[in-house]
């Protein structure tokens, strides 16, 4: 409903005009002077005011000023006398929206009103937009804040250590888990330390490689390594990372670290428990072997008794040898069990693996010869001297070599030329590969499956069932790997990769964290 206020000191004009405006659908309020007009405006707040300019007392300009003071948005149309252009201009200066001349023509009036209404409508629309916009900005800001808080909380409470850097690889973010893993406080690190003093070289380098690469979205997949931490020790971690891009520019990087100390400890524990379980299983399986040994001891003492009784030195000697042999078997069995059950750190020293293999070959040579098995060696001179545990090499190779000879002795195919081959080869700078092959009985898939996992002996009374378990344990303690390939009736090859002294120890010597000295002087 459009309401307007009409102010004129001439009652006739007031009457005629208001009648015509009402006929056009307006609700018309009237006043005969400025003062009265202002009072009506105050009370009713019409959106449009039509006022005569020349009135006794308060004139149109003063009405205009007073209205505008009260309501900036009120539309005031000034009615001027014919040719009174100066007053009209002054009125416009004070914010009148329009003016019309007397005598008032209907067209001019309705045009002026329409323009005023349009202005009001646009202004209202604008106000609505503005209010809406403010609301939307506020909502968006709130959402953004919520998300930022959420992200910050995520980063803070993440169990992964998160380290972010700028494009110069200076640390800009170091979350509490990173503090826990690396041992530095965020204040010591953020904006102060280059990433390279905390993050291991190889990680940084892989980032650098990525940043020069063509693939903008290249990410470092999860991998395991060990890293030095503040106190100088090294801990195992898994890490992954990614470069942060904005348009085509690298703007920073972020890396995630997972502390594997606990996991590694548990893994070790599990291995130990499994081994004890295997020993338990073995004890059950060993009953047979132990009975055989006992039988041998009883048999031996029987022969000794007979020898004494009959004063027969031959019997006495044979019996005594039998007792001794079975004491030896007992010792082997007990030592195997002890070796398997207990943990042992390799004792690294410079040694010549090829010479150890030659020793082993000479140890099994006699037994091999007796059973028509030939032994050949193929030793890589490149192997030379290596920092390894010579006892590990000796025991592993002796075990595999005597297994290989046994595999030939047990072979049903007596038409074969039985052979055992022992080889060495240098692999890279810090790895030696040992292999023992035979063309004996070979193994079925079933036997292969249980080979390294638990007590298993295919040798009847001769085997303790522990030999390969001990062998694998020794190889693993040395940080190496053992593999087997075998075909039934064709033969078997065991391959052992042993690394020279693992990287762990040497790293400590040359790559202490830079902040260590400072820490100590505090």
């Amino acid at each position, binding site marked *: 409903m459009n309401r307007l206020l009409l102010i004129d000191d001439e009652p006739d004009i007031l009457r005629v005009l208001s009648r015509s405006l009402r006929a056009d659908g307006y609700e018309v309020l009237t006043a005969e002077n400025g003062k009265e007009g202002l009072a009506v405006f105050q009370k009713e707040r019409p959106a449009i005011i039509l006022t005569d300019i020349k009135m006794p007392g308060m004139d149109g300009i003063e009405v205009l000023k007073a209205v505008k003071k009260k309501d900036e948005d009120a539309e005031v149309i000034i009615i001027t006398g014919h040719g009174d252009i100066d007053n009209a201009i002054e009125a416009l200066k004070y914010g009148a929206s329009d003016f019309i001349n007397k005598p008032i023509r209907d067209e001019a009036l309705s045009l002026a009103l329409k323009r005023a209404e349009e202005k009001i409508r646009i202004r209202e629309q604008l106000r609505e937009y503005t209010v809406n916009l403010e609301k939307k900005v506020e909502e968006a800001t709130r959402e953004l804040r919520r998300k930022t808080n959420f992200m910050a909380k995520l980063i803070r409470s993440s169990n992964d250590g998160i380290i972010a850097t700028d494009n110069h690889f200076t640390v800009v973010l170091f979350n509490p888990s990173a503090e826990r893993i690396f041992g530095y406080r965020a204040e010591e690190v953020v904006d102060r330390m280059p990433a390279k003093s905390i993050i291991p070289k190889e990680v940084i380098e892989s980032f650098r490689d990525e940043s020069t690469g063509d693939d903008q979205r290249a990410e470092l997949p999860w991998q395991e390594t060990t890293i030095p931490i503040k106190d100088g020790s090294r801990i195992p971690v898994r890490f992954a990372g990614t470069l942060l891009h904005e348009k085509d520019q690298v703007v920073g990087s972020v890396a995630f670290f997972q502390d594997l100390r606990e996991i590694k400890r548990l893994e070790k524990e599990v291995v130990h428990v499994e081994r004890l379980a295997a020993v338990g299983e073995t004890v059950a399986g060993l009953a047979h072997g132990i*009975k*055989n040994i006992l*039988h*041998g001891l009883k*048999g031996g003492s029987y022969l000794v008794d*007979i020898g004494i009784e009959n004063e027969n030195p031959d*019997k006495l000697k044979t019996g005594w040898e039998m007792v001794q042999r079975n004491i030896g078997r007992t010792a082997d069995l007990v030592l195997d069990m002890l070796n398997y059950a207990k943990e042992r750190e390799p004792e690294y020293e410079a040694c010549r693996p090829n010479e150890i293999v030659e020793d082993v070959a000479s140890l099994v040579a006699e037994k091999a010869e007796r059973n028509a098995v030939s032994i050949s060696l193929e030793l890589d001179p490149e192997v030379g001297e290596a920092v390894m545990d010579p006892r590990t090499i000796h025991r592993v190779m002796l075990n595999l070599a005597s297994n290989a000879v046994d595999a030939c002795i047990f072979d*049903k195919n007596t038409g074969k030329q039985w052979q055992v081959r022992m080889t060495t080869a240098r692999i890279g700078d810090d790895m030696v590969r040992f292999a023992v092959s035979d063309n004996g009985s070979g193994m079925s898939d079933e036997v292969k499956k249980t080979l390294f996992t638990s007590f298993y002996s295919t040798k009847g*009374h001769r085997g303790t069932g522990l030999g390969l378990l001990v062998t694998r344990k020794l190889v693993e303690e040395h940080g190496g790997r053992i593999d087997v390939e075998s075909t039934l009736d064709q033969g078997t090859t065991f391959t052992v990769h042993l690394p020279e002294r693992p990287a762990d120890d040497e790293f400590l010597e040359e790559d202490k964290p830079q902040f260590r000295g400072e820490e100590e002087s505090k």
Partner: protein
Amino acid sequence: MSKKVLVVDDDPDVRLFTVTVLEQHGYTPLEATNGEEGKQMIKDAAPDLVILDVLMPRESGVRLYREIKTDKKLRDLPVVILSGIAEKSFLRSQKALTEFGGEPVPEPECYLEKPVEAEDLIQAIQKILG
């Protein structure tokens, strides 16, 4: 003429012991180191009794035992099992083999678990051979 006893065992210590026990008590010992050899020896030398180990490379005692007990001509040849394997386990394995489609075989004349005393061994042999 003294009775012939065949000892089938892959462990030389066991053979030496058993052979000595047999000699001490007037029997004629024969030796075989695996099932295959044992089978041949039974054919060639016709022993009066077989002392048989169960776990051996190249034809096990289990197989030789079943061959003896399912052979019409050999069925009555008495067998003493001398093994580190418990009697229960041996009988269970025989039962399983029979269910698997084999011919049922009688239990051995005597079952001795290692380690065995010389007296127990000789008593068992004398009981069977009289």
